[in-house]
């Protein structure tokens, strides 16, 4: 079966004002099948959000692609104009659910008008009958089991945090995109609202509004429930990729292990386990990094780790970027 | 602090602004003492080797007039700027920090004097001042009518600092209000207040030239300003008779100072608020 999303050795960099290149994403490769949910986890600043832009083919200066390729249903997103990407890819093939829906909606526009803008931007007939657009909107929002009329006719400030986030999800998935990237869709929400949002995402998956999703979060336990596969990202690289069960319950890379150790767990048999912290900070990406990127903070680092570049290799049926992992 | 300065020096706007500003400051400070004025010549003599910028309607050397005018305009600008910044910062800090009814009252005053045009106040007082209006009087008047702008922006900043942890901590540790204001709030706002001060100096120079232009400028021996020079030239029909040297040098000098100050302000804003860069 052909892959719906194929990422090959994707490397991205930012160009600073003084001509310095900062490689925020290095050699990221993965593939996704129709119906797959991939979780990507990592600390803030690890390159998750940059990767999102790359996966949408959206390169707005100072972000530039260095090398590699992204294919959606076999169609490459590289070397295309922003206008081409905007009209043919965004919202239709790849769409994005951003974090912090509080600020993601234009404060001076009603929900229905923002949604109508999305439809107008991607419809063939430019004029687009307004009533027709709203009719379609109403149908779609009715699926969510919300008070459709009130929400559509509200300004963002008149809605609760949960309603706003659900409106964002509704708007992002309006055109049945092939791949949805959810960037921390539940952080900054309280626990009850988090559940409502997750439930809505699964509703949409069930109703086949979309089927393939990349779920980005820093909450590993959440991924265990949501994702089929999980990739752990550190300093712009994938350090471990495997199934959700493998990565969460049996991590092999020292960083994944540390990350799991840093999580507080509600699990009863882990009551006496103290959460550990990861000392230090990720390396600066402004300079060329020699050797393993995690070596400085790795509890089991060996002297040679600092000089030797690590590559992804198979360890216990999953990919790990560590020569000494077992 | 040092790093900020290093970043500033990389900004072409800052470099151009400082060079322009230092030039005008030095010319204004020392020019009138160093330049030996030419004896009076004929009315509106065109620029020549003797009179580099020509003469005015009384045959006075324009270079000497301009240097003196620049000095006086800078004096008014700085004096007005210092008054407006001091009064505005104190009121803004106090209101923003205190909050509650004190803030409400101070804020009402600030808003009141923002909507009542300072130009009107300047005209009304200047027009009825009994004897000679001195440069200092004009500067004080400008300063006392423009402080609300400073107060308004400082208040907003101070209010946003009020809730910060280190302020609450200081308060728990028994610091007095004055201590908190001067030790914990003012240092955070220093760069901001300085930028506002720069804008106040610019607006002081502009206000002086405007009030002089309608014939309500400083009167008296040696109190000519850039605005007075322009007003005299206009009243003696220098424009319509084609005596460009009566207008252009003074016009360029005013624009230069204000432009330099705006450049400084904008480049600093860029460094203090990185979003504006790129």
């Amino acid at each position, binding site marked *: 079966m052909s892959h719906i999303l194929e990422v090959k050795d994707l490397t991205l960099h930012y160009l600073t004002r003084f001509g310095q290149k900062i490689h925020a994403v290095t050699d990221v490769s993965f593939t996704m099948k129709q119906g797959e949910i991939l979780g990507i986890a990592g600390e803030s600043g690890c390159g998750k959000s940059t990767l999102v832009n790359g996966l949408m083919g959206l390169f707005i200066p100072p972000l530039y692609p260095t090398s590699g390729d992204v294919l959606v249903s076999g169609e490459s997103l590289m070397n295309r104009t922003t206008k081409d990407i905007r009209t043919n890819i965004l919202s239709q093939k790849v769409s994005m659910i951003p974090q912090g829906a509080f600020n993601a909606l234009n404060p001076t526009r009603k929900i229905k008008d923002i949604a109508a803008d999305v439809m107008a931007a991607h419809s063939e007939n430019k004029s687009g009958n307004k009533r027709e657009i709203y009719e379609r909107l109403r149908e779609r929002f009715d699926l969510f089991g919300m008070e459709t009329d009130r929400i559509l006719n509200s300004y963002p400030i008149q809605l609760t945090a949960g309603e706003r986030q659900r409106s964002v999800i509704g708007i992002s998935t309006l055109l049945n995109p092939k791949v949805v990237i959810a960037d921390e869709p539940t952080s900054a929400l309280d626990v009850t609202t988090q559940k409502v949002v997750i439930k809505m995402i699964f509703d949409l998956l069930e109703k086949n509004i979309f089927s393939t999703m990349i779920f980005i979060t820093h909450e590993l336990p959440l991924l265990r429930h949501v994702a089929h596969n999980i990739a752990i990202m550190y300093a712009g690289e994938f350090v471990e990729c495997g199934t959700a069960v493998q990565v969460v319950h049996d991590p092999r890379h020292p960083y994944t292990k540390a990350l799991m150790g840093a999580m507080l767990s509600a699990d009863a048999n882990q009551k006496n386990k103290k959460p550990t912290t990861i000392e230090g900070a990720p390396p600066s990406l402004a300079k060329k990094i020699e050797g393993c990127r995690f070596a400085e903070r790795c509890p089991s680092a060996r002297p040679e780790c600092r000089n030797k570049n690590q590559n992804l290799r198979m360890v216990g049926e999953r990919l790990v970027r560590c020569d000494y992992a077992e | 602090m040092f790093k900020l300065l290093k970043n500033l020096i990389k900004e072409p706007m800052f470099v151009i602004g400082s060079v322009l500003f230092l030039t005008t400051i030095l010319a204004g400070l020392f020019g009138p003492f160093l330049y030996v004025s030419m004896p009076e010549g004929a009315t509106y003599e065109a620029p020549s080797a003797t009179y580099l910028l020509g003469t005015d309607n009384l045959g006075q050397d324009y270079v000497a007039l301009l240097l003196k005018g620049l000095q006086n305009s800078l004096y008014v600008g700085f004096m007005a700027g210092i008054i407006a910044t001091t009064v505005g910062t104190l009121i803004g800090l106090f209101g923003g920090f205190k909050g509650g009814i004190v803030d409400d009252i101070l804020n009402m005053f600030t808003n009141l004097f923002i909507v009542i045009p*300072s130009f009107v106040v300047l005209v009304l*007082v200047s027009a009825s001042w009994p004897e000679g209006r001195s440069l200092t009087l004009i500067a004080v008047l400008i300063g006392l009518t423009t402080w609300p702008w400073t107060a308004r922006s400082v208040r907003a900043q101070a209010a946003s600092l009020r809730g910060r942890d280190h302020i609450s901590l200081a308060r728990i540790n028994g610091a007095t209000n004055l201590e908190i204001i001067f030790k914990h709030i003012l240092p955070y706002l220093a760069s901001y207040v300085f930028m506002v001060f720069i804008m106040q100096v610019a607006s002081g120079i502009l206000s002086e030239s405007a009030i002089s232009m309608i014939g309500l400028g400083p009167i008296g021996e040696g109190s000519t300003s850039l605005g007075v020079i322009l007003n005299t030239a206009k009243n003696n029909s220098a424009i319509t008779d084609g005596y460009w040297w009566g207008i252009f040098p003074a016009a360029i000098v005013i624009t230069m100072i204000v432009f330099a100050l705006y450049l400084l302000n904008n480049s600093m804003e860029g460094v203090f608020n990185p979003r504006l860069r790129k």
Partner: protein
Amino acid sequence: MFKKYPTVRYVLQRAIWYFLTFLVALSLNFFLPRLGSDPVDIMMAQSSFSSPEIRKQTEENLRKEFGLLVLDKQDSIVRDTVRSIVIDTVVNVVADTVIDEQGNVTLDSLGNVVVSERNETVINKHEKIEINAVKASKFSQLINYIGQVFQGDLGTSFKNQKKVSEIIAQALPWTIALQLPAILFGWIFGNGLGALAAYRRGVFDKVIFPLALLMSSIPFFVFGMVLVYFFGVVWDIFPAVGAYSLELTPGFSLDFILSIGYHYILPFFSIFLILAGGQAIGMRSMGIYELGTDYIKYAKWLGLKESRVLVYLFRNAMLPQLTGLALSIGQMVGGALITEMIFSYPGLGMAMLTAIQTNDYPVIQGVTLLITTSVLLANFTVDILIALLDPRVKQSLSMDAK
């Protein structure tokens, strides 16, 4: 009150606030000219009179005009010899007589005045004028003034005995016709340019930004002078002064209207361009700020049309710019009035300049009052507009009401 209608409540609140501000402005308008000294004293000192009687009469009329005296119901001065006002005035008399040390005129042996053209002397003669009228208290003067203003009576010009309201009525249309479009279009043009500079950045921004900054550093009247010099004098393309050709009689003839349009161009552009520069600077930094917000990023991620993103940007950055316009409109109007003087445009600015040159206080006060009033009105309008245009403000209004 009006809890159900937060917007109406807000409008009323603002209206009351601006009315109180207007009263303060009125008081300032009344007291400030009296701060330094009595305006009547200044005027009297600058005039000369043929006889002491006329002088006294004029002084009395002026004091009555200024509301400095207590009047009875028939508007005539309340006479009171006990509480009379004594005014000490200095009269300069230039004499070509020879004066001795005591200030007395030297007489020759025949009792004739010794005349010497070389010994012209200025004698400062102190003259005491007594007006047997009761001085009004400052407070009653103010109340009197406010009452008059609310009746539309702004006093009478000293110079030509015209009603101040009449002088203003003549000048106001010119000022409105010049300033309203210049400020409005300047605001729109400047903001459009600023938003584009913020959105496009790059070369466009690198050219527009310094240029706009330079433009905003030039005072209105200085730019007016430069325009007059080049376009009116050197190249002689546009008329340098006036609002219409003086050879034409005002009326609805085509020639006259064309002449007005022809005379309009220079003053319009001297306000329009400078104002646009300042607005572009403000809009640019607002725009850059808005560009970094999440909703703009999200709009781009959704693949909205560029023009639509620009509309989002412009609309939201415009709201604070609108408040900015209201707050700085006083300064703008002041600057623009001076521009009228450069062009001898027959508007309020020119009326005020003439009044200032001739110490015509009622006219000065009338014009300043009008400026303040229009600035307050502009602010009020913008406050209401913002409440209507910005759902965030609207929402906070209904929150306040709860």
